[in-house]
């Protein structure tokens, strides 16, 4: 039973909850502010070596000189490669997952290969990929694709195979064919699986792109990190890492928001 008037106990409970929430936020802010302050002051006082660890104010300087440092070009390059690798990984991965769901025989045959490919550190394929795809953007996208695709296949196939058997049986009682079972039940049932896979893949695509840029690139955040490390410009390295962290968080949030909107629209579970 709900009452319009809030009881004393309810008020205490709500107050406690609100206090807890504020405390968590304050602690989060405190830790990051304290971290930056200690880093900055430590650099000024000399107990932190700014040559090795850089300094917040110097990192800000890199951002201020974004034109000179061509930050927009590097950010754009990495984002473009990530987007292409991610989209290709999702599309090809989903297509293969559908194919394997469609043919349980093919799925059984490919199972050990998929397991091995999934466990293999794809970065080891770097030199091979460069020889196959050439030393350029294609190799970087290929690396991102190699890392994200297998995970998509396994994640989606697992979702497809775990679709409620009773729902499928219900459809079969109406003499549904495989295509109808897929479009009416399996696909809508796995919308959440798809978004979970996208969330994992966006991070993995970034990993693939940065790894690719480490190996072969003339632009991009990975290139900037390697270049900064080679010429001991730690301000540039730290600034690039920060941009990368922000980009990863923003891309992840974009998927979370899209998921919320999509589920609100199609899913009434």
């Amino acid at each position, binding site marked *: 039973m709900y009452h319009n008037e809030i009881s004393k106990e309810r008020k205490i409970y709500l107050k406690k909850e609100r206090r807890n929430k504020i405390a968590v936020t304050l602690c989060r802010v405190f830790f990051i502010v304290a971290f930056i302050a200690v880093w900055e002051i430590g650099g000024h006082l000399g107990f932190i070596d700014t040559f090795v660890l850089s300094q917040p104010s110097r990192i800000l300087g890199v951002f201020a000189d974004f034109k000179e440092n061509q930050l927009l070009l590097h950010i754009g390059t990495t984002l473009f490669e990530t987007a292409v690798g991610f989209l290709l990984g999702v599309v090809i991965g989903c297509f293969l997952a559908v194919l394997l769901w469609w043919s349980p025989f093919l799925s059984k045959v490919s199972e050990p290969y998929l397991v091995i490919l999934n466990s293999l550190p794809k970065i080891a394929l770097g030199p091979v990929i460069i020889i196959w795809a050439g030393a350029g953007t294609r190799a970087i996208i290929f690396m991102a694709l190699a890392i994200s695709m297998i995970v998509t296949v396994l994640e989606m196939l697992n979702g497809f195979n775990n679709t409620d058997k009773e729902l499928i049986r219900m*459809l079969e*009682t*109406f*003499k549904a064919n495989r295509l109808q079972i897929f479009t*009416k039940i399996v696909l809508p049932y796995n919308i959440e699986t798809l978004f979970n896979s996208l969330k994992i893949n966006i991070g993995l695509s970034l990993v693939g792109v940065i790894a690719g840029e480490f190996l072969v690139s003339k632009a991009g955040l990975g290139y900037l990190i390697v270049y900064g490390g080679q010429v001991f410009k730690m301000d540039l390295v730290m600034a690039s890492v920060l941009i990368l962290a922000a980009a990863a968080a923003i891309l992840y949030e974009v998927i979370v928001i899209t998921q919320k909107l999509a589920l609100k629209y199609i899913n*009434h579970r």
Partner: protein
Amino acid sequence: MNKILEVSHIKVCYQAVNGEVEAIRDVSFSVSEGEFISIVGPSGCGKSTLLSAVAGVTPVSEGKILLSGREVSEVSDDIAYMLQKDNLLPWRSIRKNVLLGLEIRGMITEENLSYADNLLKAYGLWEFRDKYPSQLSGGMRQRAALIRTLAVRPKVLLLDEAFSALDYQTRLAVTDDVYKILKKEKQTALIVTHDIPESISMSDRVIVLSKRPAVIRNIYTTEFDIPDRSPLLCRDHAAFGEYFNQIWKELDVHVS
């Protein structure tokens, strides 16, 4: 009344890893149009296999099954199933759920749409047609599932433990509801259940099967002199207990 379904001397075997299993042996019975028949038997005796054979899902090794005079050799459009759970798709509105069978069978026509809409209107779901399954009670969901099967206008409706997932109180109400709808629609139905009271109260005849391989031990015609018969009224009738005792003895169930 016309015989719509004739099962004569069927034997059903299936292949398991450990060998061949004989599930049904020499089972014969017939069902008249509009009749409601229950099949009861010990757990794992082959009740659901018998239903699958009638639906054409499981092939028979011997004997034959005739539906409207034609031998059943594959899944028939004239048969519809109602399973344990309502299996309504949570992402579809109630009306779209009800139309699912018609969509699958490629039977979306003006006439069929208006038939399905009329069923929704007749059984109190029209106002809920744009709602989603999660917004309906268990009983209403089961009713929507029943309308989904009736919408394809099957000659015979098969109910495989259709109410066993419901809690006891809802189950009593839902069986009463389903029975009234099926009788009003003059729907021929074959129900498999492990619930003896449900079988007696809902059906015109109760087929009692033995342990596997299932043979028919007896067929009881349940007669209650009640003007507007319904499962709940049957449960109050003096003859109900008598039928129960006879079928219970026939099943010969022991805890071992």
